[in-house]
């Protein structure tokens, strides 16, 4: 199976959801009208509002139904005959709580065929240093794998992939393509590139190589109150190599055709996922022991 993916990085207008959805639609229009090869278009974390909102999350949050409806309305006037899948991040209100979420949608030329395929709610919420997520949004509780038109996939958001265990869970559940959306403010200007941009590349390459999966990453750009998001979105193959990457800081879109048949080749060369599956029962017992011990320690 070949999937033509596009990762888009742009600077959203702060807190202006309608404007940012207009821009998402503009970019989809460009993709359709210019014939940019695309089966799945991936936008960054919180692209509908910008990332650092603090209490503004309450104003910018939308339901997933509202996002789908708003995008369908904008997309239909220029819709192409074949469906187009879209991944994007937004602040969500769901069951009386706010979340930092991602949607995987399928848009179609017929509004009744447009649908939400999957919603991921960010599992690991950074609340340290410049980050304050736990103060303003609730934590998601699942790392899920869902079927797409192109096979099983997962969506992870930013700090989700700083923990290798989330990638391991998604791979064990059968995900072949990881859509990773991010908003990463630049820190560290000593090395060849911005420190966290280098760290991101390392994380994504390690994750792809360890599990033999494709990784498609879209990262925010632009400055928010002096904090500049790095961009540098990339597509990484199951061998852990960057296939294409976008520039630092600047708005851009990158395209690649990913071939899921390469997954088997990569995993045959480095059967780490199979080894993980084989050792899973023992690992689970180890993890349960750790959890029980930590639980007990807190009672002392």
């Amino acid at each position, binding site marked *: 199976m070949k999937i033509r993916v596009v990762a888009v990085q742009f600077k959203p207008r702060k807190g202006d959801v309608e404007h940012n959805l207009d821009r998402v639609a503009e970019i989809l229009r460009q993709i359709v009208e210019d014939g940019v090869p695309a089966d799945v278009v991936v936008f960054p974390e919180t692209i509908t509002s910008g990332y*650092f909102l603090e209490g503004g999350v309450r104003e910018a949050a939308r339901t997933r139904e509202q996002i789908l409806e708003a995008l369908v309305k904008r997309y239909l006037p220029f819709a192409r005959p074949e469906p187009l899948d879209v991944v994007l991040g937004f602040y969500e209100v769901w069951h009386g709580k706010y979340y930092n979420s991602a949607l995987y949608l399928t848009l179609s030329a017929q509004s009744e065929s447009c649908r939400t395929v999957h919603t991921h709610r960010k599992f690991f919420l950074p609340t340290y240093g410049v980050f304050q997520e736990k103060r303003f949004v609730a934590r998601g509780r699942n790392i899920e794998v869902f079927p797409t038109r192109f096979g099983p996939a997962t969506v992870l958001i930013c700090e989700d992939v700083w923990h290798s265990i989330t990638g391991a869970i998604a791979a064990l559940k059968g995900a072949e393509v990881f859509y990773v959306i991010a908003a990463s403010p630049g820190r560290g200007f*000593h090395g060849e590139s911005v420190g966290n941009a280098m760290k991101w590349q390392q994380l994504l390459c390690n994750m792809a190589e360890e599990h033999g999966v494709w990784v498609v990453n879209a990262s925010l750009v632009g400055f*928010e109150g002096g904090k500049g998001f790095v961009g540098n979105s990339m597509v990484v193959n199951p061998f852990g190599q960057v296939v294409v990457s976008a520039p630092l800081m600047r708005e851009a879109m990158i395209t690649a055709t990913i071939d899921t048949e390469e997954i088997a080749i990569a995993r045959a060369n480095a059967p780490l996922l199979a080894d993980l599956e084989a050792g899973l029962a023992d690992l689970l017992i180890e993890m349960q022991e750790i959890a029980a011990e930590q639980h007990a320690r807190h009672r002392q």
Partner: protein
Amino acid sequence: MEVIQAPERTHDAEELLRINAPLVTEWLVEFLRDEMIRRRGFYRAVVGLSGGVDSSVTAFLCARALGAENVWGIRMPYRTSSTESLEHAQLVIDQLGIHSRTIDITPAVDGYLQYEPDADGRRRGNVMARMRMIVLFDLSAKLNALPVGTGNKTERLFGYFTWHADDSPPINPLGDLFKTQVWQLARYLGVPEVIVSKPASADLIVGQTDEDDLGISYHLADQILYFLLRGYRVEQIEEMGYPREKILLVKARLESTHWKRHLPTTAMLSTTSINDYYLRPVDY
């Protein structure tokens, strides 16, 4: 069997403070464009040019971000200011080809101080610094420009600035760079060496230098600040070889000036208190 020992852990702060100057330049140019043009709709900048390295670097960055034709370097001497400061500012103006104005603040400052003839050097310096801000903001209104701040991280951490004066411009590209990092950036940008290598001075009092005022060199202060900001204790920094009295000096200055890095302290009475409960980022 051969025994290979790990080297003693060294804390090479010089190395830790080294920046990738071309990358920082690119980042700060993008910051200026983003914050000035895209966010605020300003295409022009005014920079108070003191003849020192911070304002020179700021002018160089603004010229790169906006084009020299959109930058105004404003010289604001007081009668006791050194002529060298004016000359050094002129070097920057000439090298960049930016617009310039020279506004002598002496009559305005003395106009007020005639009522307070006993004001000591510190008060007089504060009046000068605040007068310069009045000039910068007024000229920015005239030129439809944005004043760009020039304060560096070291002086911000030391509280070594006049509150609601040097810190008042709405954007500041150098505020997260230590003084020694500003020097690195200056050399990369091509700021005249005479400006980079001269002793830093606020030029508010004749013959005064920052390092005399502070009681420590910027090189040493930046290294100590580097570790203090990361949460190292005084004893740990002392173990690295830094003099205890200098560490304590830096720590005392840092800890006594938190208030200068915040907006005015407001008495909280409700659960919608601004900046406590009602939290919105500056650009929301």
